[in-house]
Each structure stands twice: as C-alpha cells, then as structure tokens.
C-alpha cells in the first residue's frame, strides 16, 4: 500500500466531520476496550501473564536470527517452502510467480496485515487473478475499495446501513437486510468462491519455531477454509511473528485473544504444519511461508524502537486511544493505524512523509496501559519526535518559525529574571485584549488553542512574587 501519511491533518478533519464514523467508533471503546478490561479482571494473574508474554517477545526478538533459522529448517522438514522477502516487491513477485506457475485463477485470502503492506489483492487483480477477501470485514472494505480501518476490525467504521447499501449495489440484495441476513448473503457468496479457489493466501498470528507450525486466530472459520480447501497455501508473515515453542504459544494466545476481543479463546485457532501428508485426506498440496522484512530490520536495529516488534497486532492500543477514536483509521495513511501505527508507519514507510504521526498524540499513555506486552509507545513517539527535530538530515523536517520559538523559550527559561519579565510583558501587552482575564482569540503560533478554548492572561502577580510577599510578611 502506498503511504499517504502526509494527509493526517486533512484526514482527521474529514473524519471529525463525519457523524456516522464518529458514532461507529464509539463501539471501539464500548465494545473491544471494555471487553478487554473485563477479560483482564477475570483472569487470575493477568498482569504476570502479560509480563511473561513480554519476556517471551524480548527473548525472541533478541535472538531473532536463531529462531528464524529454526523455523525455516522445521518448515522445510515438514515439506513446505520458506521464502525471505526483503521488501513487499520481492514478496509480491514470489507469490505472483508461484500463482502463474501453478495456473491459478482464483485466490482466497484470509486477514493479513502484511498482505496489506503488499497491496496483494490489488496486485493480483492487476495481473488477472481473482483475489477475494474471506474475512467479513475485509470483504466489506474490498467491496468498498478501501484500506482497513482497524487492525482486527477492518470495517468498524461502516454502519449497518452502509454495508447493506453496498451489498445491494454489488449483489442486488435488498438494501434493508439485517446484519444476520447480510452475513448470510456474504456467506453464500464466499462459499462459492471457497469451492473454486486454487490458491489461498493467509496471514500468520504466530509461527512456532520448534515445530515449524503457523497459527491463525479467527472467529469466522474462514482461515480454516483457506488452509484446507485450495491446492496451494501461501502464508505471509512479518519476521517478528515468531515464538520459540508450543509452550510459549499457549501464553501468547491467552494474552493476544483477551486483549483483542476480550474472548478467552477465539472461535477458531488453526494450526498448520505444512502441506497435506500422504496419509491425509485434506489440506493443500503445497505450503509456502513468505517471511517479510519490509523495514522491520530498521526497527530491530534501533534500540529505541525495537519494542515495536513485540506487537501482537491485537488492536488494544487503538481501542484505548482517544485520538484514534476521533481521527479514525484512514487518517494515519498507511496499513497500521492508531498508536502502534504512529510508530511503525513512519519507520516502515518513511518518517519525513509521516512526520505528523508521532506528534498526533497527547502522550496520555492509554496505549501502553492497554498493550498486552506493555510496549512503551509514548516513549517511542518521543524518540521519533526527536528524530524529526534533531535527527539525520534526511528525516529532519521542522519549520524555521518553530525552531525560533523554542530557542526563545530556552532563552526565557535559563534565568529566573527573564522568565519573570517574560510573564510581566505578556501580561501588560495582553491586558488590553483580554476580557475577564482571558483571550478569545490569539495570533499564531497559539491560534489553534483559541479556536475552541479561551486562553488565560498570565497573572499580574506570579506565584514567585506572592511567595516573596508572604515570606516578608511572615518575617515582618
């Protein structure tokens, strides 16, 4: 997917003005966020489990080369093929070549954020291969020609009416269908595609190094259909999606699913150990695992950002984030929205273009609190902000005015006399324009504030003067 990360402010304004989306986004907090909190409270030793989960990720990412090699060996031994793709172009090329070589006409996809990085469905359609998303949310946004709005609920921004209308347009169903009827409609359409598909592309929630298994977590069962019906199965994963052992997998599933939807376990957890064996009746003839870097090595190389690779893609940080709820998913301009997107998108798709993202946060810390593995997202945002201001020339992008403002700020704060005088001058200059001690409008760079809030005039007697007076009174 081509990043449009420079459009953040414009996207945010559009979303704020859209009452349907604002209404839909309430579900993110009232549903997912609240369910996650209840699930955590109902789980004995929940915080200790999160710590354990974090420790597993820390260990795995610190030894990523070792576990990737182990995974590769095991997948090979299980009869699958592993392909390492440095970037999305290489990953896409591998999959398209494979599809052509196997004479594939129809591909079914289950949810995969990495395939969104690749725009895989588009790329396939462009070369004449039918590519159908089988996750209901993904299916809806594919019909709408949009990018996912949320990591686990891609169509969360669409109202029931909008979906019904869209289905009516594309399939001729009654636009007054209820959610149950809509699901049945989608199910009927998808069922037919499942049966004629030659190839599937799925994501990977976890890859277990010691056994070479890949694990899919779904609630709709589409993942299992994808991994069992077509003759070729391709799984794509970001290189961080690895866990060392089955035992670790158990822990990670516990915290992932509770954090994502608040369920104790999803309706389906599918484990794939390579292609069909001679004695087996179902399953694909071929299994391919495509492991994608696409900038992740840059995260790994930077100790300030490495934690971003601990992410399980559960979406809990999005659900907790008051900014995400207001600006929505598309404003972030790339595959990953919300707090984790504000860290990952700039690194994976270019910081200069995405320079607004690290700043589009009040640093409230709700994301870190919600994160099952306690990723310190606010701290990483601070690091990226620092990069934008003082980083290498190719990422630096701050206007001259802002630099001057902070220089002046520094000057004013280096001596208490200057600080005090600054306040006095602001008070004197501002006084004629203030009403009842506040301003209704001020000029830039502070004009954003007074768009919706009055700004107080600095006090005519600051605290330091009052304290001094108090002391002299006390002694006198």
């Amino acid at each position, binding site marked *: 997917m081509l990043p449009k990360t420079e459009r953040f402010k414009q996207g945010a304004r559009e979303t704020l003005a859209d009452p349907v989306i604002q209404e839909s986004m309430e579900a993110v907090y009232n549903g997912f966020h609240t369910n996650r909190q209840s699930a955590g409270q109902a789980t004995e030793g929940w915080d200790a489990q999160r710590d354990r989960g974090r420790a597993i990720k820390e260990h795995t990412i610190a030894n990523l080369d070792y576990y990737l090699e182990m995974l590769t060996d095991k997948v090979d031994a299980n009869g699958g093929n592993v392909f390492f793709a440095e970037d999305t172009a290489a990953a896409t090329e591998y999959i398209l070549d494979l599809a052509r070589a196997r004479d594939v006409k129809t591909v079914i996809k289950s949810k995969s954020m990495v395939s969104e990085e690749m725009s895989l469905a588009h790329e396939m359609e462009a070369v004449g291969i039918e590519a159908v998303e089988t996750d209901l949310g993904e299916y809806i946004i594919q019909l709408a020609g949009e990018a996912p709005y949320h990591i686990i609920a891609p169509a969360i921004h669409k109202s029931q009416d909008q979906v019904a209308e869209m289905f009516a347009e594309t399939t001729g169903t009654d636009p007054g269908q209820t959610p149950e009827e809509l699901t049945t409609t989608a199910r009927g359409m998808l069922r037919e595609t499942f049966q004629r598909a030659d190839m599937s592309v799925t994501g990977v929630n976890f890859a277990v190094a010691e056994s070479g298994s890949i694990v899919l977590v779904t609630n709709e069962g589409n993942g299992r259909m994808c991994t069992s019906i077509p003759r070729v199965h391709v799984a794509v994963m970001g290189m961080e999606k690895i866990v060392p052992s089955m035992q670790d997998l158990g822990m990670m599933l516990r915290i992932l699913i509770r954090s994502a939807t608040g369920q104790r376990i999803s309706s389906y957890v599918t484990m794939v150990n390579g292609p069909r064996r001679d004695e087996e009746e179902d399953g694909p003839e071929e299994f391919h695992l495509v492991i994608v870097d696409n900038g992740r090595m840059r995260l790994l190389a930077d100790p300030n950002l490495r934690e971003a690779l601990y992410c399980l893609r559960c979406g809990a940080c999005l659900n907790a984030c008051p*900014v995400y709820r207001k600006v929505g998913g598309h404003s972030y301009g790339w595959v990953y929205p919300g707090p984790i997107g504000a860290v990952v998108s700039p690194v994976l798709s270019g910081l200069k273009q995405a320079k607004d993202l690290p700043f589009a946060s*009040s640093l*409230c810390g709700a994301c870190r609190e919600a994160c099952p593995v306690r990723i310190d997202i606010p701290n990483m945002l601070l690091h990226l902000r620092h990069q934008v201001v003082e980083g290498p020339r190719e990422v630096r992008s701050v206007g001259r005015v802002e630099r001057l403002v902070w220089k002046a700020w520094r000057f004013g704060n280096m001596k208490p006399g200057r600080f005090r005088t600054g306040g006095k001058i602001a008070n004197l200059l501002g006084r004629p324009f203030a009403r009842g001690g506040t301003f209704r409008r001020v000029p830039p760079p502070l004009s954003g504030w007074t768009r919706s809030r009055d700004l107080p005039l600095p006090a005519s007697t600051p605290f330091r003067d009052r304290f001094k007076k108090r002391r002299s009174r006390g002694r006198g």
Partner: protein
Amino acid sequence: MTCLVDQFRPEVGESVVNVLERLGVEVDFPEGQTCCGQPAFNSGFQSEAREVARHFLDVFDATEGPIIVPSGSCGAMVRKFYSEMFEGEAAERERARCVGERIYEFTEFLVDVLGADDLYTDLGPHMEDTATYHQCCHLERELGVDHQPAELLGRVKGLEMLPMYRSEVCCGFGGTFAVKFADVSTAMLDEKLDNAAATGASTIVAGDTGCIMHMAGGLRRRGSDQQVRHIAEILDEATGPGDQANGAPA
C-alpha cells in the same frame, strides 16, 4: 512550583503552601526556578530541553529535602525523563537521579509520605460542594499516582464526589498537541466536558495545571457554570481557617 502555576494559576501554588504549612511542613521556593523543560522535550527539541533541565538541576541540587510539585506531568519529567535525556552524561545523569528521587507529586507526598490520616485527624477537612474527579494522564500513568487524589477527596466531609464516565480518558491537552492538532484536541475536550457536565457536579477537580487550563478554557468558551480546580485548592479550602474556627461541621 510549575511554570504554568507560577504564571497562570498562582492561587494553586498558594494553596499548596497553605496545606503543607498547616501540616507543619516548612516550605521554601527556590527563586532560581523556571520550567522543567517538558514542553520542549515533548516537542522533540531535546537540546533546548536539556539546557533548561540543567538549569533546573542547578537550582534544586543546591537545596535539601523533598521537592513537591503540584503536577504529575512535571514530576514525571524530572523523575523519569531526565535520566533518558542525559543518557550520554554520567555526572548529569547521577544528578538527575538524586533530584528525581526527591520529587513528589503533591497528593503523593500527602498520602505516601506524610500519611493522609494526619490531615484528617488534625485538620478535619470540610466543604460543601459537589465535585467530580478527572484522572490526569501523566499523574496516573507516568507517575502511578492512581489512588491518592481520590483518597484525599473522598475524606473531605461535605464534599460529594460524583463519578465521571470515562474519567480516565485524556482531556486532549497534551501540551503543544492542543495547538498543533487543535481539531483533534477539541474533539477530545468536548467528550470530556460532556461527560463532566453529565455528572451534574459544580466542580471538576484535577491534578495538573495543563489539563486544568485546557478544561477551564473550554468551559469558559461554552459559557458553562462548572469550574475546574486543582486538588490543592480544594484541600486548602477544606482545611482553611474558616472551617477550623467553626469547629467540626454541623
């Protein structure tokens, strides 16, 4: 004292001093102090922030005893982020650690150091009002001061505390965020003020002057009767001489 209190809400500073003095604490205000450096640090201007932080350390390293700040944000800056900012400078980092260990947020100091019981047995806080508490983000999530303010407010006689829906959600201040992303910040503020209004309380209590200025500015623009006050102001009024003179509440 924080720079925002000094310049915009000096009454908060006076309340802090009043309450501490009533509890027998000797209070000093080192005159050299300015800002802790957080605004620049949070905006990515670490060089500027580091210089101002150095000045802060110069001023407070020369003093002794606990440093009490009526703000979670500034407290977190000194306690948590100074050490990151001075990562490459061992001596400065050590100085930051020593000063950081002496930093207490106001309610944290009252409850964890002085012990809130003193405040209640000795001062018998009392005031007639209805209030709702906004959980300031940095206080809660950076400093972990999560129960102290509610404990203090809950024991003020006559003060009816009304629960606010989503009280833990950010008010949208976020320093320069409120200016750079004014639309988003405003949407967050509107949600907060709607939830605060729905409580029917006459006062919103909060622990950070940034958030207070933000909510107060919004309330004023709305023409609302609700007011926002710092928890120090509440405790000051509740333990004030007026009440003591009257003895226990009727």
